[in-house]
């Protein structure tokens, strides 16, 4: 999948997106006709109760899953009918992921976890720069088991942004962290969004975090119930948890 970076228009254009999970007789509508556009460089927060479909949407946008119906366009390219190989290449070249449980490789040091990705990227920053961006210069050669949860999550962010992705997708990045650590992680994310210009989507069920976004999408029962624009964004450090 080749893109022309200068193409104007939204980064993502999602329309009528539906995802149905079938387990035996039971049918779960995880997404029920979602429409949404994400602009280049914007920071979006996805809010909503557990089970409302946020992760499902993020996984489809991130090329980890395919919708049952509807369309997802990344810079005009349809992801819904891409095959496994194309989705793998899409994730490799364009998407950075951050997850609740960090998903670091335990047998690689912080630096190596980042380098693992930069090694196979076209235009990466150096692992040192990426780690500096999240404030972890001094812990580069530690293994995950030697780092705190917040530090591990910042390594995960450094790893996600090091390849300069167009998209940064974060599923409950602070979910496993206390508030002070959560703020440090959010700061790292905000900074990454600013410095790399990656379109950033953050899932959270902490309503306080909404204020750091350009736009906030509220999910309910597989639909987007509301979309709010923040007239003024606040810094993560000013977020009340």
């Amino acid at each position, binding site marked *: 999948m080749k893109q022309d970076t200068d193409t104007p228009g939204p980064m993502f254009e999602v329309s009528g997106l539906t995802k149905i999970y079938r387990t035996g007789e039971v049918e779960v509508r995880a997404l029920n006709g979602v429409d949404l556009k994400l602009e280049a460089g914007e920071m979006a927060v996805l809010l909503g109760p557990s089970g409302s479909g946020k992760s499902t949407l993020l996984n489809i946008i991130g090329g*980890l899953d395919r919708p049952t119906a509807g369309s997802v366009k990344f810079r005009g390219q349809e992801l819904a009918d891409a095959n496994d190989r194309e989705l*793998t290449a899409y*994730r490799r070249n364009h998407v950075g992921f951050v997850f609740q449980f960090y998903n670091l490789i335990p*047998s*690689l040091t912080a*630096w*190596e976890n980042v380098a693992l990705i930069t090694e196979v990227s076209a235009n990466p920053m150096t692992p040192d720069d990426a780690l500096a961006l999240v404030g972890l210069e001094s812990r580069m050669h530690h293994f995950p088991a030697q780092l705190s949860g917040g530090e591990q999550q910042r390594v995960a962010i450094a790893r996600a942004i090091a390849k300069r992705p167009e998209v940064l997708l974060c599923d409950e990045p602070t979910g496993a962290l206390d508030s002070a650590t959560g703020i440090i992680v959010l700061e790292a994310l905000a900074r990454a969004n600013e410095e790399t210009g990656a379109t950033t989507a953050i899932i959270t069920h902490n309503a306080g975090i909404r204020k750091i976004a350009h736009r906030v999408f509220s999910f309910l029962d597989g639909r987007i119930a509301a979309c709010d624009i923040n007239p003024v964004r606040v810094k993560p450090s000013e977020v009340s948890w």
Partner: protein
Amino acid sequence: MNALSMLDRKLVRDLVRLWAQSLAVALVMACGVMTLILALGATRALEDTRAAFYDRTRFGHVFATAIRAPESLGTKIAAIDGVAAVATRIVHPVIIDIDGMAEPATGQLISIPDHGEAAVNRLYLRSGRLPEPGRPDEVTVIEAFAEAHGFRSGDSFAALINGRKRQLRITGVTLSPEHVYAIGPGDIVPDQKRYGVVHMRRTTLDGAYDMQSAFNSVSLTLSRHANKKQVMARLDAILKPYGGVAAHDRSDHPSDAFLDAELVQLKAMAQVIPPIFLFISAFLVNMILSRLIALEREQIGLLKAVGYSNSGIAWHYAKLTLVISVAGVIIGAVAGTRLGHGMASLYSEFFSFPFLVFSQRPDLYVIATLVTFAAALAGAANAIRGAVRLPPAVAMRPPAPTRYRSLFGGADSGFRPLFSHLTVMALRHLVRWPVRTALTTLGTALPVALLITSLFAFDSIDSMIDTVWFRADRQDATLTFAASQSEDAIRSVAHLPGVIAAEPFRAEAATLRHGHLSRQVQIIGTDPHTDISRVLDRDFRPVRLPPNGLLLSERLASHLDLRPGDAVEVELRNGQERRVLVPLVGVTNSYIGLNANMSRGALDRLSGQAARISGARVIIDDNRTEDLYDAVKQTPAIASVALQGVSREKFRAMIEENIGISVTVYVSLAIIITVGVIYNSARIQLSERARELASLRVFGFTNGEVSRVLLTELGVMVVLAQPLGWLIGRGFSELVATGFESDLFRIPLVITPPTYALSSLVVLGAALVSALIVRRRIDRLDLIRVLKTRD
């Protein structure tokens, strides 16, 4: 009770989920059970049958020969303290001429008493009847010979008896304890067609060989508490004046010695092969159970928290182990029993017993079951202990994250051009669990070793054939005279039709003594410059026989504790009772028998008699073999003929027949072990690293790249296993070769590169297939699920 059945339901579900891994382990166990049942069952079958047959036929304990001993000595021998029964008889080599068979067969004529049955070495009559005393043309023949020629009672054949061609009529077919394994003189493998044992009434043989009131062979049974050594010494003393050659016991009786060699081999098999399988199954059980318990850590904590006892939990996992073991035992027992019957019928082709039943006594199966359970539980013990020791509160927390370390003090990441990060991941994982890595490597090395140990025999036999038949005994035939002849006889031999070249030899029975050690051997005297039959030194180079002194084969020299330069006392058993000190001038290489060689001149001088020759080794013109065979059949002076050329072919054919069976069996066993080890380790790796590998997929690594992590790790172990397997295989082979070594024969330890290569290829192939089966699971990794959960 209800609660227990819940655990049992979990057990069933675990087994269903782990069916492939459990089956792989059960199959490895089954191989252990099968080989154990086979080896023990066959050992017993042979031992029991042999004991029963020997007992029934009163197989002699002690055997001796003389040239011509008066019959009255029989009473004297019977009076020796410890002797239970004595049979004196006449035994003569004979050349047999069979219609339609060009080659002359050789045989033995053995007398049976005129009336009744022999007191020692009775015949077992398979069919027909014994010869009537008054009918000199009536004989019985041993079953192997009869079957090879399709003989029945009433058929007849010709034999050259004491220079006269006589037509003999078969009245019965027999088995004899002395010929359970009937092998002709000078042969390495039995050739049923060319070796016949013929029994005749005593009076008939007395007449034929002019031995009225005399015997030349005696065998006796001993009473329970007899002192065998003393009996043999007394017997020697009695027979000595009559050209007695020293007495020997059963262990020097060729038939019994070959049976013993087979038993030694079976026992070695029972000691080496089943333990390999049991060790590997113990290791695999340990690996599977440890992983299962690690995965179920929190469930175990919960069970304990709600009041399940430690023993209940231990029993739960022990049951899982036992269920797998039961499957292994059943498969192994069925396979072992079936193969056992096959093996018994194979044995009955080689060994002539009236019956040979594969032992199926229940204790055999009980032993196999207990041993397998013990091995499996030993493997499980460590893992179960871990589960029992977990305090409930700790168990319910997730385990501490695995701590990894840089290799070589961090240098591993410095080799980035050499090792990608994916490779570093694989290597650090290997080093993180060094014991498991070592055991997996060993588990993969053992099938390589097993294959080498089974295949090396063919290399060794090849090398032995080359040495024996192409470097040492290059003659096509060996003709042995009925009585020694003057040197001129060699010219008559050379003039026989078809003979291209002939070399004379003189053979003298002798006792060699050094200090308190002594041995009975045949000293072979040949011309120093022989070219057909040569003596080889330890580097397989032909030796030019020195004008004086004795050469002994390595094993014989070591029996007598002799080194070159030592003097050995030689007493020829020609009735002269002269003891002469002869220097040992060299040690020779030999694979068959215990050899003593001298130059013919030296042996003539030693004998104190004129130059005599005992026979000749000849090279035959391929186009005129039949003429020679005819001539031999007509020549009374030739008592026996060994056809090395025919032996060579027969031997090759037998090896080729065996190689197919053994390669199939051992390759199958090796594949089962390899699949068991590699499949299980790949599954466990995948289970431990599913999250890591799925993460890599999420970040955009392809299935191929992700698989590399798994395959690299397995690959390193499998590759390391090869040289280790070669080393262990060499060690095992050495044990086997040493175990085989007897005074009858030994095999050299030769392992050719193709054997190493084939062993490795089989294991590498099986490992690759197992790894690829597991690799397919990487394609099916659920990317989303691993992101949602912690480990």
